[in-house]
């Protein structure tokens, strides 16, 4: 009843092409953004902002990047964390070595550096496909982490290879407290998500999806393989790179190359599997799930075990977490291969008819 689109007519092309064609969606998304910008910063505690909301936004951005490459263009990548590392370290170096560099520009340049690296490691995709390519992207993961560790120039000759980011200052205003950082990250993520949403419904996005669905057929109808695939790698790596820069500057503060290991790549891959492969919304849902789940498990596993009369040995929670994670992935793939985003969609379909299904 609340979600009827009857009576909403599209009279112009502009109306037909808007991102959210249904009025209720527009209202909902506006409300969500208002809450995110105006309510959450004032009600959420510092812990929530610092430990949950900021990483949630940053990982959503990284998942968005991977989703563009894997979900839309169909090129499975296991090197996401590597591209994030490039973004983080490039932004750090731009900031360090160029005196006047504004921080936002150096983040963007970090993203661009990641995009360049992404293009280089995307080159094999022109020749090899499927699993062979997935394994090839592992090369990016290992090579990048190795290079950042081995050449001390990248970490400004710090003895441990760890970089410590400076303060975040824009036009003389220092973003210092978790609340300010949250707002900054939120603004960037919202803008980039909007850009991604528009990109995947443009000609570029349709070309990506054509390549994903069948690359030979796409080539036959005149989609330029090299241009399309490399663009997907570049855009995806740009998103990952910016996410990496934000990860270093707005979240952790001190990062080392080893922090961007294969495990992180897998976590981001899991985000898009659970959230929904080939869905912008799914990237956010998946990131939220993967961030919240370990916290939930850590705070409830012990009490539950106690209630059942079992004493969990130390370290058992992390093993349990691994097991439940693995089982969940398999469960999701078997039951809902399109992830949480698909559940959301089904819910909306149901809502359109509710409460009078006929």
């Amino acid at each position, binding site marked *: 009843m609340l979600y009827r689109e009857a009576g909403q007519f599209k009279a112009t092309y502009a109306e037909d092409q808007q991102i959210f064609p249904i009025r209720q969606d527009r209202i909902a998304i506006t409300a969500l953004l208002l809450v995110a910008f105006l309510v959450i910063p004032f009600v959420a505690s510092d812990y929530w902002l610092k430990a949950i909301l900021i990483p949630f936004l940053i990982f959503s951005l990284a998942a968005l990047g991977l989703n563009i490459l894997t979900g839309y263009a169909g090129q499975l990548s296991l090197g996401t964390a590597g591209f994030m590392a490039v973004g983080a370290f490039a932004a750090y170096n731009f900031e360090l070595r160029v005196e006047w560099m504004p921080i936002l520009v150096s983040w963007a340049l970090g993203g661009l550096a990641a995009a360049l690296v992404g293009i280089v490691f995307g080159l094999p995709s022109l020749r090899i496909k499927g699993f062979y390519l997935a*394994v*090839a992207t592992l*090369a990016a993961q*290992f*090579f990048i982490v*190795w290079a950042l560790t081995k050449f001390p120039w990248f970490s400004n000759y710090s003895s441990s290879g760890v970089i410590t980011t400076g303060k975040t200052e824009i036009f003389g205003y220092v973003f210092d407290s978790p609340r300010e950082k949250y707002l900054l990250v939120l603004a960037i993520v919202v803008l980039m998500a909007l850009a991604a949403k528009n990109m995947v419904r443009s000609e570029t996005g349709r070309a990506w999806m054509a390549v994903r669905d*069948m690359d030979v057929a796409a080539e036959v109808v005149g989609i330029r393989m090299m241009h399309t695939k490399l663009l997907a790698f570049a855009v995806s790596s740009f998103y990952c790179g910016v996410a990496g820069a934000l990860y270093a500057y707005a979240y952790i503060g001190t990062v080392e190359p080893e922090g961007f290991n294969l495990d992180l790549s897998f976590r981001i891959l899991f985000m898009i599997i659970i959230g929904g492969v080939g869905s912008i919304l799914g990237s956010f849902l998946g990131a939220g799930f993967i961030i919240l789940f370990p916290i939930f498990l850590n705070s409830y596993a012990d009490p539950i075990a106690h209630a059942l009369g079992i004493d969990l040995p130390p370290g058992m929670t992390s*093993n349990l977490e691994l097991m439940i994670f*693995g089982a969940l992935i398999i469960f999701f793939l078997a039951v809902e291969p399109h992830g949480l985003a698909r559940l959301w969609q089904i819910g909306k379909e149901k809502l359109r008819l509710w409460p009078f299904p006929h």
Partner: protein
Amino acid sequence: MQFFLEVLIGGLLSGVMYSLVALGFVLIFKASGVFNFAQGALVFLAALTTVGLMERGAPGWIAGLIAAILLGMAVLAVRKGRGAALGGRDWRKAGMFAAIAVGTILLIHKPLPFWGAVAVTLVFMVGVGVATERVVLRPLVNQPPISLFMATIGLTFFLEGLAQAMWGANVRGLDIGIPDEPIQWVMDRWGVLVSSFDLAGAGIAAVLVASLAVFFNKTRIGRALRAVADDHQAALAVGIPLKQIWAIVWAAAGFVALVAGLLWGARNGVQFALTFVALKALPVLILGGFESIAGAIVGGLIIGASEKLAEVYIGPMVGGGIESWFAYVVALLFLLVRPEGLFGEKHIDRV
């Protein structure tokens, strides 16, 4: 020259060990088209289970759990309407499950001798393989290969967690009775250091490969496996039991993982790092081609040798440690020339 030979031989022998892990991948890919990322976790699980059984026997809770599941399956097998053929009561199957369940209970907190532990681990790995087929693969039939691949990543996490939950995360040594010292005879004759352990490992791998080759090419099941790999539906149509075949393949992969786990565990100690061995096997795999056992061997030799040589001769120029990625670059460069690997099948895409 002598140093070069030493490095080369060392590389080739360690390459054989990579092949051993790559074999597990190839087996499953050949038979079901699934790229099984969990092979490394299987290796880790097998090695850890063997060591754990030798050290302190099965932990009570996990043995109890397994026994309970097995007893449940035994009951299911004799319930009316389930079990063998069309609705019969399968007493043999039930008896087998019950026997294994009782055996599991008997193992609690009883350290086993080496061969006993290996035998029990083998049964356990076969069980894990069969369970994987039943729980992970069967619900995912007809999904695109990429989903299956991601499911095996999930399986990797599950098995790693399971292994450590069962046996703890400590690093343990494993002695399988083969000394790791240079062979005197070769030393005297050519002045080259060759470890007897590496040589024995290579020998075991060779035997394993030979028997797998015979199994695939000469036996009835092997032919069925190849038929399934070629075309699932056609194989079903001529009456090949698909599910059974997949269970056999996963059990075989468990066996290969056990052998690899014992050798690698004895070499590097049984620890979490064993799972990374699988990452080393991946370039071997793409170099040799996913579908070829011969490819796994040749690829392993190439990767092992080039990696060691590069570490010694190129490594110092760039600060060392290039072993972590060099294999991938070799494999990548190779793929640019031959995108389907050395012995992989060439697929022609049609629209």
